């Protein structure tokens, strides 16, 4: 499979009033052509920073890239000039942000905002750009696009605005679309519509997507693969099935246990105890150990490497070390693992032989 983008050993800090915030501490992943990679994790785990560093949208004055590469189309995006980068933004890679209420310019007609990338990157003339924009608005499901082009953002609802933002992002048929919690700020019903729209459009224009969310429920719906982030690191990565039915990292267990399931009757929802680590002074070993009931002595000493679970599945936890004791994940997770071939709790089906 063709790799669209590859992030290698990314390490990045912010210099703030209070000191150095080590926001990203060694992150590597890749996105293949046509797939959707979901990045999940609690808020503050570094999801947005990771994607903003791909786009180089972080404040220049306070951000320090300490290490790593972002390989895209044979180039390292962290090395190219700002001018070159401007040609990548909005054309090859585009972005959708969390809050549609604030991500459109309030004093500019939305037509102009959609036409902007077309005029800039595709060198269309005004009337062609206009036609293309109307088309795009229709594509994202906006009724009466012709008339809507002349309106200002405040004349649209939240869901409609997110559709506009999507239209802007897709204007130049980008190779990679980064959606940073695109549905978090929306009502549940609107959320579903926007997700449908994105899946639909992905098929139509064959783009790869990095989909950021803190909501595992959404992930099952849209993603091919999932990366779980914690404390500025990726702690587990695998296909959707692997993450949902054969998770290895205690943090992933925690996330899965705290996910409300539709069929379940439990009256109390599980919440991971404690708070995310302070990135001003990140813990020495496994950042999650302090909140984990599966902590090992070594977790406090040394950072776990990524252990390979399968060709597509890796997890950074000492529990996968051959010397580590066998532990049982929480019951609901164990229940899930029973249905995954290859997991150690797999029970097979239809009287299947071992």
């Amino acid at each position, binding site marked *: 499979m063709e790799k669209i983008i590859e992030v290698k050993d990314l390490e990045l800090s912010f210099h703030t009033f209070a000191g150095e915030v080590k926001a990203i501490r060694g992150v590597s992943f890749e996105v293949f052509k046509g797939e959707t990679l979901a990045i999940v994790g609690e808020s503050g785990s570094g999801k947005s920073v990771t994607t903003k560093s791909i786009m180089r949208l972080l404040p220049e004055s306070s951000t320090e890239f300490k290490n790593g590469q972002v390989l895209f189309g044979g180039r390292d995006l962290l090395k190219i000039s700002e001018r070159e980068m401007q040609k990548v933004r909005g054309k090859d890679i585009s972005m959708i942000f969390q809050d549609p209420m604030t991500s459109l310019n309030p004093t500019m007609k939305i037509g102009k905002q959609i036409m902007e990338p077309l005029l800039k990157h595709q060198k269309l003339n005004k009337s062609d750009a206009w036609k293309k924009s109307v088309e795009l608005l229709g594509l994202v499901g906006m009724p009466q696009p012709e008339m809507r082009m002349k309106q*200002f953002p405040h004349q649209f609802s939240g869901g409609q605005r997110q559709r506009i933002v999507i239209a802007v992002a897709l204007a130049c048929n980008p190779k990679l679309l980064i959606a940073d919690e695109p549905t978090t700020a929306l009502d549940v019903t609107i959320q579903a519509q926007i997700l449908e729209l994105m899946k639909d459009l992905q098929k139509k224009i064959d783009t790869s997507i990095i989909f950021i969310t803190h909501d595992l429920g959404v992930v099952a719906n849209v993603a091919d693969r999932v990366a779980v982030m914690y404390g500025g690191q990726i702690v587990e990565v695998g296909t959707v099935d692997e993450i949902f039915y054969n998770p290895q990292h205690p943090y992933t267990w925690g996330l899965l246990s705290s996910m409300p399931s539709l069929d379940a009757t439990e009256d109390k929802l599980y919440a991971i105890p404690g708070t995310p680590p302070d990135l001003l002074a990140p813990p020495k070993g496994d950042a999650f150990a302090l909140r984990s009931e599966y902590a090992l002595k070594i977790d406090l000493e040394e950072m776990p490497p990524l252990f390979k679970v399968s060709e597509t599945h890796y997890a950074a936890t000492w529990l996968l070390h051959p010397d580590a004791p066998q532990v049982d994940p929480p019951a609901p997770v164990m229940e899930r693992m029973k249905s995954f071939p290859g997991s150690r709790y797999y029970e097979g089906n239809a009287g299947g032989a071992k």
Partner: protein
Amino acid sequence: MAKYITKRVVYMFISLFLIASLTFVLMKLLPGSPLASAEKLSIEQREVIYEKYGLNDPIPVQYIRYMGNLAKGDFGISFQYKNADVMTLILKKLEYSVILGAQAIVFGTVIGIVLGMIAALKQNTIWDYGSTIIAILGISIPSFVFAVLLQFIFAVELEWFDVGLWNGWKSSILPSIALAMGPIAIAARFIRTEMIEVLGTDYILLAKAKGANWFEIAFKHAFRNALIPLITVLGPLAAGLLTGSLVVEQIFAIPGIGEQFVKSINSNDYAIIMGTTMFFSVFLIVIILIVDILYGIIDPRIRLSGGSK
């Protein structure tokens, strides 16, 4: 929006009514008023004048007549200037004051906007600090201090301008600059803060994500959004200019309303003082109302939502 405007207009009239009543009371209370030089007149002369201006009528009648006259734009009569009509006097002097005020506000806001933009776009550089210093000086130092300093340097010492003499448009340069210092400072500070805030918004980030360059970000996206709220300070700015113009006109001997006003204070010509006060009140209150309404019309964010601030 219509409801908001109606409400504002009603308040405007209540404010004006109060001010008018207060001026009437003052006219009645003030020593020696309404005839500043009444002592010099004989009893018969005084009687004639009292009769002529209805000063023998009961107070409520005088009050109603006074308010009626004000409503018609009749601000009373100056005794100092041979019974000249105050409104006519004001209108005659208006031109000078308007030239001065308009020059100051245009010059001041334009320079202020430029300074504020530079400061915001070159944050924490020498440009930013320079512009901040100018802003602090402009906000802190009263315009009459600027006025006397300018006069001392450019008129007294360098002799580029005449001292205390109105001599056509050239004489309006120094006073306009002195008056503009406030607007420069206020606009510069305001634009800097607004620009920095706007540059940190999501829509600017999205514009960047679309591939916009530095210039497009600053001028196509940010500038307009930072500029529109500047309208809100135009009201206070006008009030400040008016205050400043009183002294600045006097310092540079500009034959405008402000100079007339200060002169009248020193010669106790209450009719002119009260008339001009009324005129200032109407002027400022109307300006502030217009500014507020204008903001509602120009800013598309509040244009249709019908909200006040």
